């Protein structure tokens, strides 16, 4: 019996190691495949690929700058909108709302998370874009049209609309994780703060948020990760042009949307290889963000003296 159990344990341990190893193997495999596929483009353009704006399939000149810029900008807009909104919603659900309301709204948020991205894209194109073109952009243009950020004709599609769609898509993720984090703050701690005479606002700011900061940051990075690689919804509304424009009303593109658009018809080797290198760049950006998140989390942990 004893030796049988030993075999059982060892088999399980072996299987578990193998399964975990598959993940590493997969990540490394994908990286190597992307790197190998990018070969011709890396040899041809070198570092210029990252800093050139021109993307011209006719003259076979490929530069990733507009795609990188678009990826970062649309994700940035999404985070600026989604993070504060999510935090407020989560706090409302945990601290202020009646439990019944909280359950209903919470359920709705989880439903939002389950909507496929293509639906967000279609909704963005057929519903949000006309609203942006007719009301939102003319309104912003009227009050802030002198800023280069808000120039150009209000056509409804472009960076701003893409950012808003992305914000709506990541909102449920950040909200539901943050809500769970806030729920985990022990009542005893909160009650003691109230007992000391703190107001709701003070408790929220100095106890709940402080206690859950790690989780909040984690939730934000989860949303960021989703936004940065989002493809279909962005392709529908971003306007798909390889140009960098200071205006948020202008059309642009992202790495993922460029891949979705151009992969099927790229017949030339260098063209295909440049697209794969774009994929590699996205892979590296995601990796760097993960790394930065780790480092930042560790520093915050030390600063706040959180032991968890």
């Amino acid at each position: 019996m004893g030796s049988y159990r030993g075999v059982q344990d060892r088999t399980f341990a072996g299987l578990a190691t193998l399964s975990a190893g598959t993940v590493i193997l997969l990540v490394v495999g994908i990286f190597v495949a992307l790197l190998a596929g990018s070969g011709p483009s890396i040899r041809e353009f070198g570092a210029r690929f990252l800093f050139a704006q021109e993307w011209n399939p006719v003259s076979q000149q490929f530069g990733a700058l507009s795609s990188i810029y678009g990826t970062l900008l649309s994700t940035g807009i999404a985070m600026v909108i989604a993070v504060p909104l999510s935090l407020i919603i989560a706090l409302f659900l945990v601290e202020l709302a009646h439990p019944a309301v909280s359950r209903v709204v919470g359920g709705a948020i989880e439903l939002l998370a389950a909507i496929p991205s293509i639906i967000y894209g279609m909704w963005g194109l057929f519903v949000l874009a006309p609203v942006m073109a007719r009301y939102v952009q003319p309104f912003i243009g009227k009050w802030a049209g002198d800023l280069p950020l808000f120039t150009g004709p209000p056509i409804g599609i472009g960076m701003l609309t893409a950012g808003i769609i992305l914000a709506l898509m990541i909102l449920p993720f950040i909200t539901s994780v943050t809500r769970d984090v806030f729920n985990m703050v022990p009542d005893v701690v909160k009650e003691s703060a109230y007992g000391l005479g703190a107001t709701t606002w003070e408790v929220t700011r100095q106890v709940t948020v402080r206690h859950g900061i790690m989780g909040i940051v984690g939730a934000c990075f989860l949303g960021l990760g989703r936004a940065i690689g989002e493809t279909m919804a962005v392709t529908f509304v971003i306007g798909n042009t390889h140009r960098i424009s200071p205006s948020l009303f202008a059309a642009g593109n992202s790495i993922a949307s460029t891949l979705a658009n151009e992969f099927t018809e790229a017949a030339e080797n260098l063209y295909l290889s440049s697209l794969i290198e774009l994929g590699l760049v996205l892979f590296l950006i995601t990796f760097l963000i993960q790394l930065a998140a780790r480092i930042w989390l560790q520093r915050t942990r030390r600063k706040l003296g959180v032991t968890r």
Partner: protein
Amino acid sequence: MKRLLLNIFFAIALTASLATPSFAARITIIGAGASFPFPVYAQWANKYGKVQGVRINYQSIGSGGGIRQIKAKTVDFGASDAPLKPADLDEAGLIQFPMIVGGVVPVVNIRGLEPGALRLTPELLAEIFLGKITIWNDPAIVGLNPGIKLTDQPIIVVHRSDGSGTTWIFTNYLDKVSSEWHKQVGTAKAVNWPTGVGGKGNEGVAAYVTQVPGAIGYVEYAYALQNRLNHVQLKNKAGRFVSPSSTTFQTAAAKADWKSSVGYYVVLTDQPGENSWPITGASFILLQRNMPDTERARKMLAFFDWSYRHGKDIAERLDYIPIPDSLVDMIEKTWSETLRSQGGVVWP
């Protein structure tokens, strides 16, 4: 990242499924390529399957994919909207021939404009797409359209964001009529657009043009009809303003000099003829000159022959232009002369 992985996965799955031999009892002919002729190929395949019991499986993965697949011999035939150069055909051991003709139509969204009323010259069209003319009441446009009320609405150019045969035909036309376009942009399935926004697919361009006031885009004729988009009249090579219709596409196709073109390398844009629509294009089929399986090869050619001769009404119903019989005879003669399988003639 997730999406890319998914795409790679699907690409592998697709290649694997294409390479898998079909069931022995029933031959399935596999083709892949251009999306522009997909509706008509699908209808032909469906009808032919019912009549002859041969299954044709056509995957509209794009012309680029079609060319790659036929070169790699993973499909029985490839399809492309842009013809390959004769030298490329020789290098890869392929032949090509036109299968169907269609037209590309500039469409506009101007409030209060009668359908098909706006007139444009090739030069104006090129300047609009180059971003040189940016408002609708530019003197050049107004001068050409004295009866139409145009305002200082900005012109929003809408182009395809994905690589496409439609773009190839359209840019090929602009390339021919404007030296500036030739210098700055050129002809390709995807180009470096000087201005405008990009929509994915014909339906994406149609959606943008419908929604954005002041927009001008280009779509394949069937999409312009289905979405009731407002097309323009274009001045053709003979100097006459023509509207897109099956008659004007047909005239353009008939004027082409197929006979003296090696490898059927004919581009139908900017053809002569009083009644020719200037942005007309053919879609091509690509075959390996040397086919391993005689039986399969014969079945496939029989399908093309049937489509040419009995598929005309299907094509016309979908607003495509069938290939004229004289050209079909010529193409089939080419099959007899160039296609070989196991050392023998395949057709007839």
